[in-house]
C-alpha cells in the first residue's frame, strides 16, 4: 500500500506524532504533558508556516 501526502499534511502528521511523544516523555503530570504537547505541535506547525512564507518571499 502506498500513499501520497502533501508537504503540509506530512509535516502535520510528523508534528502530531513527535509532539505526542515529547509531551509524554518530557513532563510529569497529565496537565503538563498536554500543555507541552500542544506547545510542541504549535511550534512544529508554526515553524513550517513561517518557513513556507519565508521561502515564498525569497522567491518573489
Amino acid at each position: 500500500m502506498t500513499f501520497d501526502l502533501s508537504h503540509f499534511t506530512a509535516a502535520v502528521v510528523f508534528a502530531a506524532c513527535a509532539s505526542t511523544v515529547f509531551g509524554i516523555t518530557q513532563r510529569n503530570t497529565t496537565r503538563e504533558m498536554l500543555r507541552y504537547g500542544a506547545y510542541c505541535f504549535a511550534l512544529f506547525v508554526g515553524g513550517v508556516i513561517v518557513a513556507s512564507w519565508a521561502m515564498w518571499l525569497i522567491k518573489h
Partner: protein
Amino acid sequence: MANVQNTTAGARAAKSGDAATGSMTIIAPLAGWLLPGLGHFIQRRWIRGLLLMLAVFIMFFAGLGMQGKVYGFNTGDLLDILGFVGDIGSGLLYFIARAMDWGAGNIQRAVADYGTKYIVVAGLLNIISAVDAYHIAIGKKQ
C-alpha cells in the same frame, strides 16, 4: 517478639521490592525498545503506552506507505550509518520490515524521502520512549 517478626517481614518485603525494581530497570527499557509502548504497559501506564505505541506505529508505517527506505547495516556513508542507527530504534518493527523486505525506497518520488525520514524518526522517538520507561522504573518519574 512480634515486633521483631514484623520488622524482618518488612525488610524481606522491601528487599524483594528492590529486586523487582532492579529487574524492571532492565526489562522496561528493553521491552519498550522491542515493542513501542510495552515498557509503559508492563508498568501499568496504559494510556501513555498506547499513545506512544500509536505515535511510533503511525510514523513507521506512514514512512513505509510513502515508500521510504529502511537502512540495513552498513559501513558506508556516514548518513547511511546514522540512518541505520535511527531505524534500529524501532525494535521489532525494524526487524519485521527487514525480514519482509519492506522499505526498498523509491528515488523517483519526492515523498519517498519524507518516508525515509519518518522511519528514522519513528526509531528515535521509540528510543526516547524506552528511556522514559526506564525513568519510571527507577522512580525518577511517576
